[in-house]
């Protein structure tokens, strides 16, 4: 009944096609979701297309099925299917975020979401955070697609722990950075948005107290001007550019000398295909700073972003700028890569 479905397949770097693939077995623990919308991420997914992604400890190989942002209707719920991350029982007809499908019989799943029919079970979605999330009434499918990267940003922002009034610099105004910017603004921080592309920063003005159109690696001077030389309490790096990481210490305020001052924080929120190189060390450790990394999101984060969208506190619509039918996906990867500085994300209608 759910043996085959249409999927995007990347056969080898720079070669994508849309074709029918075999699905994982549907057992009594499974939930099956028919995709209505997905999206192409310009970060991680484009790297699986252009071959720049990491080896993932041997878990990345070609041909692969990319993606993780799809949403749709529940078509089947097995008698032993698990509840969602926040304890809801799903039924046929529910509108849900489906997301990762981490196993296919014939392909690498990296991360398997660009598929017309998503099989979610212990094999394909073992983690609690992997479970589908119910989309509340009042939130459209198109908006719900964007809640995935919003949840990724939320895990990072929660980890950093933003205090009202802090100065927070967010670098990289892709979907993750722009989501983080919105969450940081909600937390009451003074926000500075940085992106190398003037187009990207111009469009986020309403979420930022200041915008800076420059290479994150060269942001010291403009941020010094904005902060009167004090610099940032927190930097959230979402550009995915290792060269930016290497100069982040210069954006962090002095601190960490007294008992009640723990110094500034850096959160690395991108995926970095090139090595991160921290030097000169004296410039880093003289700031007594803290750094953190986070991967994916925690159980409940998808639902939390969906609620924020419903309450009008999180703008999902600004996170994409184009919609295409699924059959056009193979041509959209090079399009996104070529026009990187004037594009954010493509929504895919199935």
């Amino acid at each position: 009944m759910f043996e085959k479905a249409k999927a995007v397949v990347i056969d080898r770097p720079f070669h994508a096609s849309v074709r029918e693939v075999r699905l994982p077995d549907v057992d009594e623990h499974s939930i099956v979701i028919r995709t209505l919308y997905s999206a192409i991420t310009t970060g991680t997914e484009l790297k699986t297309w252009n071959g720049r992604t990491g080896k993932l400890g041997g878990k990345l190989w070609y041909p692969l099925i990319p993606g993780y942002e799809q949403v749709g209707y529940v078509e089947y719920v097995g008698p032993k299917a698990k509840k969602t991350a926040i304890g809801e029982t799903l039924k046929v007809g529910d509108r849900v975020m489906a997301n990762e499908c981490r196993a296919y019989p014939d392909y690498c799943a990296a991360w398997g979401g660009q598929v017309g029919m998503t099989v979610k079970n212990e094999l394909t979605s073992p983690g609690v955070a992997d479970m589908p999330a119910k989309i509340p009434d009042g939130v459209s499918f198109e908006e719900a697609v964007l809640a995935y990267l919003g949840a990724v940003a939320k895990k990072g922002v929660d980890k950093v722990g933003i205090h009202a009034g802090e100065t927070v610099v967010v670098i990289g105004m892709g979907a993750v950075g722009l989501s983080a910017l919105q969450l940081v603004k909600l937390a009451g921080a003074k926000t500075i948005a940085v992106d190398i592309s003037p187009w990207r920063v111009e469009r986020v003005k309403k979420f930022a107290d200041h915008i800076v159109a420059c290479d994150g690696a060269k942001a010291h001077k403009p941020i010094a001007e904005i902060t009167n030389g004090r610099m940032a309490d927190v930097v959230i790096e979402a550009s995915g550019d290792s060269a930016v990481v290497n100069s982040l210490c210069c954006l962090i305020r002095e601190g960490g000398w007294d008992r009640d001052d723990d110094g500034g924080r850096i959160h690395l929120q991108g995926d970095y295909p090139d090595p991160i190189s921290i030097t000169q060390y004296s410039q880093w450790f003289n700031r007594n700073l803290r750094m953190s990394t986070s991967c994916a999101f925690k159980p409940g984060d998808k639902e939390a972003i969906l609620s924020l969208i419903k309450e009008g506190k999180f703008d999902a619509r600004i996170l994409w700028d184009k919609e295409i039918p699924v059959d056009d996906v193979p041509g959209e990867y090079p399009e996104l890569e070529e026009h990187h500085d004037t594009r954010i994300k493509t929504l895919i209608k199935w």
Partner: protein
Amino acid sequence: MFEKGQAIVIEKPRAAVIKEISLAPVDDETVVVKTTYSAISTGTEMKVWSGISGSLGGELWYPLVPGYEEVGEVVHVGKKVKNFKVGDRVMANECRYYPDLCAAWGGQCGTVIKNKKTSPSAFDGPVKIPDGISDQEAVLAYLAAVAHKGFKRVGPRAGQTIFVIGMGMVGTSWIQLAKLAGCRVIGMDLNDKRLKLGAKFADEVIDGKSNDPAEILKKMTDGKKADIVVECSGDPASVTHLYQYLKDGGWDLTDEPGHIHLQADYPYPLILTPYQNWFTKNMNMSLTCAIRPDGKAEILKLISEGKFDVKTILESEITPEMPVKDAQKAYEMIERSKKDIFKVILKW
């Protein structure tokens, strides 16, 4: 009266001499300390001697007065000094200003001028040495206080497993502080003599020369690995491998992720790659520099209460004492020893 003093001067990399130098001006707020003992730290100080230290944003140049592990007796107090009197024994440490020389960090001097000009930071002030603690013991309290700042920042809890890499003064101090907090502590070093010394403090040690130290750590911890990894070796290559020693975590609401603390000074770039191996740890990382304002006093208190052991280090064959006139020989010997020497105590 205190215009000149004898000091170790590193004139250019690998060339240290003892000579008379001009001291910072003495004002009403100055405490002057006559040095009795200092020490050569095999980390930071050896790097300024050998010339591989960082440029410190332009604040490092030659000729310089090195050092910061220094104690002595107060020989003069300015009119406005309240907390010290002549005859007090104190940890003096940094002297960050000399009229003619770079201070990096100026502690290797026979007469140390402590005032706002030479010791501006909240943690720079001299600290009295309690009775019952010898000058030689107090010399070692400085780097213990460096570990103390990192320890306070990370905040280990009883029952956690702490993996400390690098069994120098900072690393062994971390071990002692973590043991006091009720942690299980595992140490590692590449050098046999340091490993042997570390074994006197840690619950267990791993030989850094083993085929697969991460696998050994995994076995020791029933597959879990360390809650907290503390890098005290100062070897940039060590940092590249740190994720291997860290537990998994940060996926659910209750599985606290691991923490990496960089506690050393790294002369070459730290390379974090491949990124997936790091960010899938959902880790926290922290860096601390120098000491907290209360650090030296806290360590001295622990020593006098018998909770922090510096005697074992002083009595160890790898911590020799030499006269200060032999400073250049001491630097050369430490470099030649390839870390077989833990620290040299200098008698003034």
